[in-house]
């Protein structure tokens, strides 16, 4: 059933009787060609593109809880493709292009809002690094602008220019960056995949993999064995746990990232703004809440909750950068479990077990990557070859010394 303004009108006048479930609550069949483990944004997007782009007719997504209950529904909704390194930039730009056509493509308004992402710099060294990054983006055909302090002032006059501990020297602006209504992404992909025949199986947790001399034949689940030609795992936050069931250790640690939203306010913050001298970034949702966050808590955790030091650190950053938000009230805080990889970049690759594929290690980058991650994982699952924008996301890059380390922090996940 197609969504449209006309349809909304018609249903409004007929008591909304015609709306159908956005997706079927499917029961597992004995076997699928491809089973995607994980009903989050990446898993659902993978299934959607497997069906739509690679015409796969026998695909299932299995989810231990309810779809969209993980990081796709627990993030700060930012999309951008302002990456530094060639291993990353083409991939995230591919993702940005998919975002730009996504709503029309899957017929669901995810409120993709290209209001701009502004990263502030506060030292000459940061400005040099931003220039290198901006030029790298341009060389990759991506939009980027370098603003000086006046340029920033024009765009965000409410920032602390006059009494700042770390003065604002300028910023890197990606006009095409912005925000997306995160839950809608999961629902839109689910609805799109479902309408193309994908079985979305909720409350179905993987308990093990059936592996027969080096080949994966399917998954054991709380709802029985499900045979599969290929199994793709996309379970951010639980990657270590799920892959351990296949005897695989990962270059990943799980950490908690907190996020915050304020009470609703009339529009006051135009773009996504990130502080360069502290841990604080913010945007304002269409509903009016200030959606903000900062750094991860820094210790391994699966608890989906954090602690006060980071809450305070983030608010300190906010009050250093934009003291006008002081009397806005923080309404909710929550935590998401991040797959923090050893170089801050993700993995989309085959494993040593035939028929078992892995997608994870997204650190903070997961939400903005959702469409491209889905497309590239679908490409790998369908063709057994990496998508051209994801060739660097291999397991063996650490063994070979080919890390993709945007922040230059080395093998310490909580610093990425």
């Amino acid at each position, binding site marked *: 059933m197609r969504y449209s303004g006309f349809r909304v009108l018609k249903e409004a006048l007929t008591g909304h009787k015609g709306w159908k479930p956005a997706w079927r609550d499917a029961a597992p069949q004995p076997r699928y060609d491809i089973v995607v483990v994980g009903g989050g944004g990446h898993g659902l997007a993978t299934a959607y593109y497997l069906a739509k782009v690679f015409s796969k007719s026998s695909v299932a997504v299995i989810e231990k809880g309810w779809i969209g209950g993980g990081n796709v529904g627990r993030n700060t909704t930012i999309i951008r493709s302002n990456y530094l390194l060639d291993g990353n930039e083409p991939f995230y730009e591919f993702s940005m292009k998919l975002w730009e056509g996504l709503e029309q493509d899957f017929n669901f308004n995810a409120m993709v809002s290209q209001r701009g992402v502004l990263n502030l710099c506060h030292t000459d060294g940061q400005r040099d690094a931003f220039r290198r990054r901006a030029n790298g983006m341009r060389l990759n055909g991506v939009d980027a602008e370098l603003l000086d302090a006046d340029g920033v002032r024009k765009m965000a006059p409410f920032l602390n220019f006059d009494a700042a501990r770390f003065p604002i020297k300028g910023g890197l602006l990606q006009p095409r960056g912005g925000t997306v209504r995160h839950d809608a992404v999961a629902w839109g992909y689910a609805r799109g995949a479902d309408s193309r025949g994908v079985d979305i199986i909720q409350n179905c947790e993987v308990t093990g993999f059936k592996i027969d001399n080096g080949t994966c034949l399917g998954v054991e689940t709380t709802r029985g064995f499900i045979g599969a030609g290929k199994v793709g795992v996309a379970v951010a936050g639980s990657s270590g746990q799920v892959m*351990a069931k296949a005897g695989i250790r990962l270059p990943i*640690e*799980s950490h908690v990232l907190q996020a915050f939203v304020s009470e609703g306010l009339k529009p006051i913050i135009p773009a996504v703004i990130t502080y360069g001298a502290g841990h604080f970034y913010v945007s304002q949702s269409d509903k009016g809440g200030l959606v903000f966050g900062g750094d991860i808590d820094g210790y*391994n955790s*699966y608890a989906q909750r954090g602690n006060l030091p980071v809450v305070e650190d983030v608010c300190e950053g906010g009050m250093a950068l934009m003291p006008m938000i002081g009397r806005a009230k923080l309404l909710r805080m929550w935590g998401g479990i991040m797959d923090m990889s050893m170089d801050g970049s993700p993995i989309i690759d085959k494993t040593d077990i035939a028929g078992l594929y892995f997608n994870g290690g997204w650190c903070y980058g997961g939400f903005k990557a959702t469409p491209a991650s889905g497309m590239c994982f679908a490409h790998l699952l369908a063709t057994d070859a990496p998508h051209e924008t994801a060739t660097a996301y291999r397991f063996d890059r*650490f063994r070979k010394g080919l890390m993709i380390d945007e922040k230059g922090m080395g093998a310490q996940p909580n610093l990425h």
Partner: protein
Amino acid sequence: MIIPHPLLGPRDSQEFTYLGDVSLIDRPDWQATGAVDQFHDYLYLRDNPAGLHRELWFHEQGDRSWLVVTRDTRTHEITGAELARDVARTKGRST
């Protein structure tokens, strides 16, 4: 969080800096055969358990001790803390 420091008692975790899995103490022998692979596994691969985790914390704003803290990554409950130097010795790292 509160870290039960073996010498100083309960301390706010904000005084500490976190490093990670205690296995980072087990630095391989540089002269072993396949040393590069051993160092790769040592530096890059993690058990990343959902449950008890022995991990390294540095009392940076305190007495500069490295501690090995045993903490449940699902509940954050801490069941032990030792001086990392003692742990290193029991792991046979005395020179």
